[in-house]
């Protein structure tokens, strides 16, 4: 808060620098730089200049003279580091800009070259980047003993190799690869020498630096790596760190080109060939070409890292580094095996051992993912191992680590790996969706878009019904996970559950065995095939419904439902469409009560129900009994009425012989009676606190549907005509005034009139209200002469006019 205020104050006083004032400021800086005044005034001025340039997204015009001075100072041998950094920063902030004329020729030291490079990279001119890359490469290869210069330039090299791989000549790339291999493997194992501090009383003592140590304090057992520590580090050790840091990118992009590196088909051949096994086994030969040399050294380095990462680090930061190194080592080994399949034989044993170690260690869950990916790629050679890893990954990890945002993100990214879609792993992925949804339920804002992309992969005809139930129950899953944490976390640990919501009695209520059973069912790890109703749990979890996390999840569900239906309608057959439609009806009033949730879900489901009917129109006739029950049991629509509207509309649309030959007149009659009763009920009853006002759409859709049914079973016409006249009268009477608005009543009157008019010509009514299948052709609707509202309107006007335009 304080910082924000300070910031705003700071911003205010600095942003109002007009062009003229800026010009004066630039002139002052030019003068200071030209005079080679490296004192605090210049420092202060350059800091302000940086702020002026950086603070606005629009470019600020600086005097060309000033820019020239900045460029000169950057490459001056006498300018101190701090000021040079600021000059580079200002120039970089200006970039991309046409007024920069920096070139790497002006740099006089490796450090300056590095600074110039940062500006040129920001400028983004491809030609300049290329030239700079070549210049840096020249500097790198010209130095014999390692000086501090190389550490400035290696990162530049790595960046250029990623951005413009073809910028670097092959000879020099190979030479650098060879040196990288040397730095990785042959760095000194002695600690760096201390500089003699030379105090007033102490004689400078030549202190013998000891050997480097491992992270657990023991003396280093083998060559130096990033996990070797000491009081001070030598230059070649720094290069070792940098070389490993850039290794994967170098191997991937600008690195050595193995003749058959990209040829995946050759892989199986090579794996069986004895010749490559022999050549890969010859580690002693320095006659290896640079590319293979680097790979060989990289392999040894990674194997050493795997061993080192098992040690017990003394410092927390080192323990974090061990995990990061573990991941990186596995990633590099994966890359090496892709580039040279012969490595596989040597790598598999360590990875098997690693897999065993990681599966037993809950703190290393994140490190398991690259291991799983490794087995995914090189699976043929290690089929048995792969299954064990995946089982552990999909059944244990989500249940135990759903609350870790970084793991959740990485896990979901892993699930989106295209390689996972091949083979038997896909089934395991699909049946593990209850576990995967735990990540989603817990961190919905971050993961919703990821799951929207993942759902088409997960949705399967066998599990679709269960998945829809779980999606609708997602907010209750969030609440259940929160409750689980409350009951299982030790008191000393930092609470992961929502501390602002108390849940008195929830834990107690959970002791009931039946509740416990349902609870475990909700928290299952795999698709169980049964769909037991979890409604009793909703009441138990109700106190947690106000948790922010639950509310966030509830807000994400509509998006997920849409993605689900988009996926499932691609392949659903009639039976599945039927089951899903019933599910919608059943669950529409059995949802976890979170604020706004029911309304949002109803809105989505009410648009999906017609879509399902369209997929399988016969379901209206097949499920006639359930639909009748749904319509009859409502006794007045509760809340929004979305579901009722959509069901009634579907009945009107699809309950006809043209869609399903099994439709009988008796069925039409039964539905007619039920809908008629419903219409009476919603219009006659007074709205009260318990029964909210009936939405207009419900009334109009009921009227239209009744008319449609009558047009199909024409002995119902007198009844419906009577009904419509009554509706029209009702809409005019003053008694309903305060309940509905004048517009609403007008709409009811108009619709009633239109329908009545239509019914006066039964054959026209049939044509209009029970259109043939061609109605699904776009042409039917684009041709404005055939659209229904226009037809209704025209008929009404025709009837009302006394002129003799009536045909016949």
């Amino acid at each position, binding site marked *: 808060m304080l910082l924000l205020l300070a910031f705003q104050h*700071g911003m205010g006083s600095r942003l109002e620098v007009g062009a003229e004032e800026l010009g004066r400021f630039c002139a002052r800086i030019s003068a200071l730089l030209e005079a080679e005044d490296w004192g605090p005034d210049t420092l202060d001025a350059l800091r302000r200049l940086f702020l002026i340039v950086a603070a606005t997204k629009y470019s600020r015009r600086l005097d060309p003279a000033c820019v020239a001075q900045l460029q000169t100072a950057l490459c001056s041998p006498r300018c101190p580091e701090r000021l040079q950094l600021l000059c580079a920063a200002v120039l970089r902030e200006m970039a991309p800009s046409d007024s920069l004329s920096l070139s790497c020729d002006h740099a006089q030291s490796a450090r300056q070259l590095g600074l110039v490079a940062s500006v040129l990279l920001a400028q983004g001119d491809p030609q300049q980047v*290329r030239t700079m890359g070549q210049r840096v490469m020249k500097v790198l290869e010209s130095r014999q003993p390692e000086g501090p210069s190389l550490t400035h330039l290696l990162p530049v090299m790595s960046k250029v190799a990623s951005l413009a791989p073809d910028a670097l000549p092959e000879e020099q790339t190979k030479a650098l690869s060879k040196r990288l291999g040397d730095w990785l493997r042959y760095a000194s194992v002695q600690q760096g020498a201390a500089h003699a501090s030379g105090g007033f009383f102490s004689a400078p003592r030549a202190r013998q630096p000891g050997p480097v140590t491992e992270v657990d304090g023991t003396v280093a057992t083998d060559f130096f790596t990033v996990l070797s520590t000491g009081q001070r580090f030598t230059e070649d050790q720094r290069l070792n*760190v940098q070389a490993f840091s850039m290794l994967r990118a170098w191997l991937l992009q600008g690195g050595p080109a193995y003749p058959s590196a990209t040829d995946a088909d050759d892989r199986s051949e090579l794996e069986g060939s004895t010749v490559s096994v022999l050549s890969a086994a010859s580690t002693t030969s320095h006659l290896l070409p640079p590319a293979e040399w680097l790979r060989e050294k990289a392999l040894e380095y990674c194997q050493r890292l795997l061993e080192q990462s098992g040690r017990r680090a003394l410092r927390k930061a080192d323990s974090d580094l061990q995990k990061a190194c573990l991941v990186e080592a596995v990633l590099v080994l994966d890359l090496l095996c892709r580039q040279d399949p012969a490595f596989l034989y040597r790598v598999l044993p360590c990875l098997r051992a690693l897999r065993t170690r990681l599966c037993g260690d809950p703190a290393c869950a994140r490190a398991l993912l690259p291991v799983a990916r490794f087995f995914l790629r090189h699976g043929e050679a290690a089929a048995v191992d792969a299954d064990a890893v995946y089982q552990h990954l999909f059944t244990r990890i989500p249940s135990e680590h759903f609350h870790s945002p970084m793991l959740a993100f990485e896990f979901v990214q892993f699930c989106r790996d295209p390689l996972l879609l091949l083979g038997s792993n896909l089934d395991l992925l699909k049946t593990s969706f209850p576990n995967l949804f735990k990540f989603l339920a817990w961190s919905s804002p971050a993961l919703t878009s990821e799951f929207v992309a993942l759902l088409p992969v997960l949705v399967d005809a066998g599990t679709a019904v269960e998945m829809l139930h779980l999606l609708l129950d997602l907010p209750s899953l969030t609440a259940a996970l929160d409750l689980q944490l409350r009951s299982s976390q030790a008191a000393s640990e930092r609470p992961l559950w929502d501390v602002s919501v108390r849940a008195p009695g929830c834990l107690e209520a959970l002791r009931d065995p039946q509740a416990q059973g349902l609870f475990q069912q909700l928290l299952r790890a795999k698709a169980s095939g049964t769909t037991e109703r979890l409604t009793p749990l909703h009441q138990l979890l109700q106190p947690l419904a106000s948790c922010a996390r639950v509310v966030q999840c509830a807000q994400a569900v509509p998006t997920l439902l849409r993605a689900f239906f988009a996926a499932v309608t691609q392949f659903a057959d009639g039976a599945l469409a039927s089951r899903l439609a019933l599910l919608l009806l059943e669950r529409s009033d059995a949802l976890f009560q979170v604020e706004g949730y029911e309304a949002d879900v109803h809105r989505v489901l009410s648009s999906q129900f017609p879509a399902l009917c369209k997929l399988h129109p016969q379901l209206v006739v097949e499920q006639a009994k359930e639909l009748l029950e749904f319509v009859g049991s409502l006794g007045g629509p509760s809340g929004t009425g979305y579901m009722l509207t959509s069901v009634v509309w579907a009945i009107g649309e699809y309950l006809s012989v043209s869609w399903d030959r099994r439709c009988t007149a008796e069925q039409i009659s039964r539905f007619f009676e039920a809908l008629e009763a419903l219409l009476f009920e919603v219009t006659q009853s007074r709205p009260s606190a318990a029964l909210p006002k009936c939405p207009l759409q419900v009334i109009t859709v009921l009227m239209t549907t009744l008319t449609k049914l009558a047009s199909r079973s024409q002995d119902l016409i007198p009844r419906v005509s009577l009904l419509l006249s009554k509706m029209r009268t009702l809409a005019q009477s003053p008694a309903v005034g305060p309940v509905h608005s004048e517009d609403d009543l007008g709409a009811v009157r108009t619709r009633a009139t239109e329908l009545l008019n239509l019914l006066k010509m039964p054959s026209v009514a049939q044509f209009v209200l029970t259109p043939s299948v061609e109605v699904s052709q776009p042409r039917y609707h684009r041709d404005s002469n055939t659209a229904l509202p226009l037809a209704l309107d025209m008929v009404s006007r025709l009837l009302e006019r006394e002129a003799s335009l009536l045909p016949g």
Partner: protein
Amino acid sequence: MVHAFLIHTLRATKAEEGFCRVLYSCFFGAENSPNDPQPRSAERDRLLRKEQILAVARQVESMYQLQQQACGRHAVDLQPQSSDDPVALHEAPCGAFRLAPGDPFQEPRTVVWLGVLSIGFALVLDTEENLLLVENTLRLLARLLLDHLRLLVPGANLLLRADCIEGILTRFLPHGQLLFLNDQFVQGLEKEFSAAWSH
């Protein structure tokens, strides 16, 4: 590859006054690959970059607010920090999310973020990075910046100390290169930095 690093303001809840502002940002290399043949105006490119960074900052702030809300932590709960208390960075909220191609960068990117009281730190990366290393690096940078810039002391104005930020980035994230630094190594580099910046 790390594409950008940014420091920005964080409001604890949406209701708080003010806007999300980018305090410092650094691009490591241009977004278009150098092979891009289309001619682009330099000024427009710069404007685009600034806006992309602001878009990232806003999204980080939004994720931070949602995460804090979900944990039940409100602005009132945050203890006022004195400059002597070490900020518990290991418990600072952090997260990651993916940016779809075109929104706002051309290529898909991953963003890893860390929120410390009213300041957010974020790294914009390629999609296939070692996220454990990224997280470690981000925490390290945050710790160094908080310590050396004394960001939590009232009146400290980080905007005017760009040289300090640059000095730290040059050593710990040179040209966007993520480094595997063990604790002793970090201490050594930090001593060097302090020595160079003290006079």
